């Protein structure tokens, strides 16, 4: 038997096992998502703190945004400095649709996703051909273009004062988003569903194609993968999740502001990924929780929060040289191996 034949034989043998595993892990993911949603949904019944609910709503917005950025940075190796533009597009698209057209919330939600997809497809078609630093800077340029458009198109966007007058929230399917608890539950549902979908993308054959592109795009291209199409697809998909994050934020603040589409939002996304780690799926979510806790506690005590947050970045970048989840995972693996050797 040649090596090739042997390889094929082992492939046929192991294929059903892999399938069963991925089938099982998919069900495990859904189960974890359901449990997480149940726990989050139960929180308001045990804790009366509105600040806690606000915190989780903000975590949903930034968590969706940061995890979607990780689909680009961690899984595909595309470091986008302009991902915040889709966060802003989501907030403005949703806010404007609700204020100007008065359509039901689900319609505005889907329409905003459609608008984002069109923008992302056009911008992505130009950007994803570029590599590394060029990709990063052209995405940043597009972000600044969108930000400038928001600032100057004052008759539509309200310019630097943002969308004023609040976002109307008509009741749909018995859900009243003007009610704090309803908004909280909806945000949690969007977060959990978003994370679950992103997890499925990451664990699918397409997700592994992305990893291959990240590790060696030329090799992927040689074995017949259309790298440009795969990159464009993930660019658009990531934009949709970032846009959903923007919509959650728009609902939370009942408005949309140019700062949502500014480069600092993209910077925060990258910082969150650095903090939480990019090699695990939940790294950005952990990073989001960490950053928001840090931000909320540090700003309570000092206005020199920039120094504190800077020191934290330095600690992770120079001290740990990786995100928290990456570090913990490595530490756990070492510990397990060490125990295995002793045993």
């Amino acid at each position, binding site marked *: 038997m040649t090596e090739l034949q042997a390889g094929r034989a082992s492939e046929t043998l192991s294929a059903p096992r892999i399938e069963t595993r991925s089938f099982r892990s998919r069900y495990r993911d859904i189960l974890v998502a359901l449990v997480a949603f149940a726990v989050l949904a139960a929180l308001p019944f045990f804790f009366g703190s509105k*600040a806690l609910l606000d915190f989780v709503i903000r975590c949903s917005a930034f968590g969706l945004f940061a995890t979607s950025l990780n689909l680009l940075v961690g899984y595909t190796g595309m470091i986008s400095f302009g991902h915040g533009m889709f966060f802003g597009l989501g907030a403005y698209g949703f806010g404007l649709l609700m204020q100007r057209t008065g359509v039901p919330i689900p319609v505005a939600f889907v329409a905003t996703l459609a608008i984002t997809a069109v923008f992302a497809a056009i911008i992505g078609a130009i950007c994803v051909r570029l590599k590394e630093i060029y990709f990063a800077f052209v995405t940043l340029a597009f972000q600044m273009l969108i930000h400038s458009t928001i600032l100057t198109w004052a008759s539509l966007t309200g*310019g630097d004062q943002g969308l004023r007058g609040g976002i109307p929230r008509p009741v749909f399917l018995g859900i009243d988003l003007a009610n704090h608890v309803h908004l909280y539950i909806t945000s949690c549902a969007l977060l959990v569903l978003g994370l679950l979908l992103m997890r499925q993308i990451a664990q699918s054959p397409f997700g592994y194609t992305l990893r291959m592109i990240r590790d060696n795009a030329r090799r992927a291209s040689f074995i017949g993968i259309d790298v440009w199409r795969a990159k464009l697809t993930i660019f658009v998909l990531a934009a949709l999740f970032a846009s959903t994050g923007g919509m959650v934020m728009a609902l*939370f603040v*009942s408005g949309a502001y140019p700062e949502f589409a500014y480069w600092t939002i993209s910077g925060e996304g990258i910082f969150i990924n650095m903090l939480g780690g990019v090699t695990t799926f939940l790294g950005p979510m952990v990073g989001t929780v960490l950053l928001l806790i840090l931000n909320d506690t540090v700003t309570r005590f000092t206005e020199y929060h920039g120094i504190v947050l800077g020191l934290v970045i330095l600690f992770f970048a120079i001290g740990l040289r990786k995100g928290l989840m990456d570090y913990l995972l490595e530490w756990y693996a070492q510990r397990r191996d060490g125990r295995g050797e002793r045993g």
Partner: protein
Amino acid sequence: MKRTRQPGISRRATLALMGAGAVTIAAPWVARAQAKTIKIGMPTILSGRVAQLGTSSRNAVLLEVEKVNAAGGLAGRQIEMVIRDSKGQPQEAARIARELVNTDGCEMLFDGEASSGSFAVHEVARDLGVLCIHTCSEASSLTADPKQHIPNAFRCVRQGIHDSIVGGSYAAAIAKTKGLKKWATCSPDYAYGRDTTGEFSLYLKRFAPDVEIISESWPKLFQPDYTEVVTKILQAKPQALYTCLWGGDLTSYIDQANIYALFTQMEVFAVNMADYTALTVVKNLPKGIHSGNRYIKTFPKTPENAAWGDAYRAKYNEYPTNWSWQNATAVMLLTEAVKKANSTDGKKVAEALRGLTIKCPFGADGTVTMRGEDNTLVGYAIGWGTTIPQEPYVPEVKAGDWKTIFELEAEWKKSKGYT
């Protein structure tokens, strides 16, 4: 020796976590239990390029609160200010405003945010129904637009439209006297710059119809280099220049324009010049720049205003800003409203604030009024004068006429579809 401790969370750590959790959950109840003091929350900008907005607002509020507390507080309750930095981000401003009310137990809000942040806090006030006084945002639409109106939010700030009316009539008078027909404008490229310049031009042309704007420049906000703007204006050869650049942008512009001797070649009208933040920072302040008053202790020329400016300077070793007088006025108005309502209940205080006139060092006639129809401050000292390079910087200020302001403001509201 091998360690016998099992991996996992230790008992001590568990207890510490439980304790921290209990404190977090109990915090709102503890806050409410200490109801003898009244907490007023204030999100503002304490870091970044416009940190002076927040610090000078905070200074003024604390200066006034100290006086109120020494006099017995608000209806017998001592005021405790809880002031936090929003970094100028609207989502942070909204988050902090909610946190101040929901977690820290603040019963009222002073919104020390500029521009978009103030609209974010306004939405929080709408949502939570808490009494809110805006103390920094000059955007006219915040209170002029009826869609924004909520009964529990007030604005204790000068307004862009008032400045434009007074500036337009003042500039037109000078244009007629000196025959200034060709004008140029140079203002920051964002909503405030474009709106204020548009309104100023409108009123300038209304009072002096033969005026023509021959050149417009829109430098970016926080632009470091103004060379191309300055040379563009010089090439256009206007007889007068209007600018609403402010703060560091205005001082950089003046320093750079001085190199080209721009100020000797045309009359300059800079609405935001007469504020100590700009006056004291410019290296060579040209004589004869026309400016609207922001805050100077010589206008209104009263002992009360001078004393307030001196007290502020003595306490903080710096001059007060335009934001300072506005925040101080907010405390004064609130104090009088609480006295009138004889209660610190937000709804009753809001009712008392509506239409309230108080004695105030910053009033055009010694009083200011919280106008009832749109919950906004009127009657404050507003005027224009020319600069000199040393104290008192703007020796003579020509006061604006509030009767004309009211008439033209009503017209403006109608044209915008606000009434």
